[in-house]
């Protein structure tokens, strides 16, 4: 009986901690929205973050997209060949990339690259009192540090997703048509026939939400970091894991709502 009550206690505490953390994150999000509409609007900081989040993540997103497209073509070729439907490889690649893999994998890559960097940078500023210094200089750190990162992520992740979608399809075309010798006309025609603009739009909308999630989680973890260098390391790791989980949960909910 004692063991059961201890287990219930541990689970209860974990759930309470998780709910508490989600609540704090929500409060931060409300603050971010409030400060986003409060002048002055710092376009220079926004561009700086768009470069950091976007331009510097572009190569890794291109590589992820191209290899994912190629492996999708390869796998679906082996599956469709069994019933002579190899010409559906193109549409399989395109739909998978635009609806699911493009947004999810891109946001994972940006989480690993930029979301973790946000947690580490802001966490390091927190433990070295640089955030207190901003407050002391009458500058709101949420407006100065967090709003540009979140807005940049919301803008840039959809652009990166569009790039990933495109190179993924190119990778699939290369694998399907050039390597596996599928008829190029049928490959493209089926893609045109079955892929709708809505598939692309919905993927892009999802990626904007993922951009919001990864940046808010990264900034939150950094902003609340405690305990020196070890605390910053912990915040960085936790930001990647938590963002990935929340992105997957949000992906399910958004997919269920949109498609």
């Amino acid at each position, binding site marked *: 009986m004692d063991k059961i009550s201890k287990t219930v206690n541990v689970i209860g505490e974990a759930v309470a901690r998780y709910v508490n953390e989600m609540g704090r994150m929500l409060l931060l999000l409300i603050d971010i929205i409030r400060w986003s509409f409060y002048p002055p609007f710092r376009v220079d900081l926004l561009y700086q973050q768009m470069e950091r989040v976007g331009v510097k993540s572009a190569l890794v997103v291109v590589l992820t997209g191209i290899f994912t497209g190629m492996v999708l073509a390869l796998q679906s070729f082996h599956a469709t060949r069994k019933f002579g439907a190899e010409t559906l490889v193109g549409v399989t690649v395109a739909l998978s990339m635009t609806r699911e893999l493009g947004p999810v994998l891109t946001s994972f890559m940006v989480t690993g690259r930029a979301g973790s960097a946000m947690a580490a940078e802001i966490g390091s500023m927190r433990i*070295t009192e640089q955030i207190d*210094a901003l407050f*002391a*200089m*009458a500058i*709101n750190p949420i407006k100065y540090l967090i709003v540009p990162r979140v807005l940049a992520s919301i803008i840039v992740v959809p652009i990166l997703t569009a790039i990933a979608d495109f190179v993924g399809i190119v990778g699939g075309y290369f694998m399907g048509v050039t390597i596996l010798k599928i008829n190029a006309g049928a490959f493209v025609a089926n893609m045109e026939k079955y892929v709708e603009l809505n598939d692309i739009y919905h993927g892009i909308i999802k990626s904007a939400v993922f951009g919001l999630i990864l940046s808010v989680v990264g900034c939150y973890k950094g902003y609340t970091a405690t305990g020196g260098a070890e605390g910053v390391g912990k915040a960085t790791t936790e930001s990647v894991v938590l963002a990935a989980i929340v992105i997957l949960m949000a992906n399910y909910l958004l997919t269920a709502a949109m498609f």
Partner: protein
Amino acid sequence: MIEITGLHKSFGEQKVLTGVDLQIPARKSTVILGRSGVGKSVLLKHIIGLVRPDRGRILIDGVDITKLGDTEINEMRKRFGMLFQDAALFDSMTVGANVAFPLYEHTNLKEKEIARIVAQKLEQVGLPGEEGKMPAQLSGGMKRRVGLARALALDPEIVLFDEPTAGLDPPMAEAIEELITQTQQDLGRTFVVITHSIHTAFHVGHKIAMLHEGKIIEEGSPRAFRKSLNPVVQAFLTPGEGKEEQA
């Protein structure tokens, strides 16, 4: 003039400030002395509104800052400069950009004018021509000098110092103390210094107050403070004396 009355602050179960009463005179250096971990930094952060008290008032020229909203307190903070314990320089910016930062954020001055002020402030703290260096290239003492230059950039009325000499070797600590004293004399601003160093307290303070167990237990001019009959103050000022006598 800063007037602190009945200031209480707890973090969870831990009571840090339990009724601080202190008057900080304008255009003088006031030192708040106390052991490490006694709540000096917490008290300092209350003065600039970084921490909100559970109870009590902090009047700055008659305005109770504990009652101000976010916008008003932000305006009030523009009257302050603060040097943090490890300077809290922005490590992604050069020395020049650090000092220029408050000027870019709060003034409409032209680039050339900002560069002139930055050069002047760096010269004032004994680091002329160091604008291009990164904080990582600086020693602890140099970082604090840059921190002071940044704190002075907007010519604030009140400058707060959080343990300005902690962790420095004695000659460097002495140099920073001299810089604080000289700057206060030159500018005639209100300086509030918190420290656990007796040497620093007597070097820079026109007034010394001692924080102990959440309260100010003694305050006065350096001469009066040294003559205090409070046993805690005496034990702090002459550590080990009792042991020597016993031996």
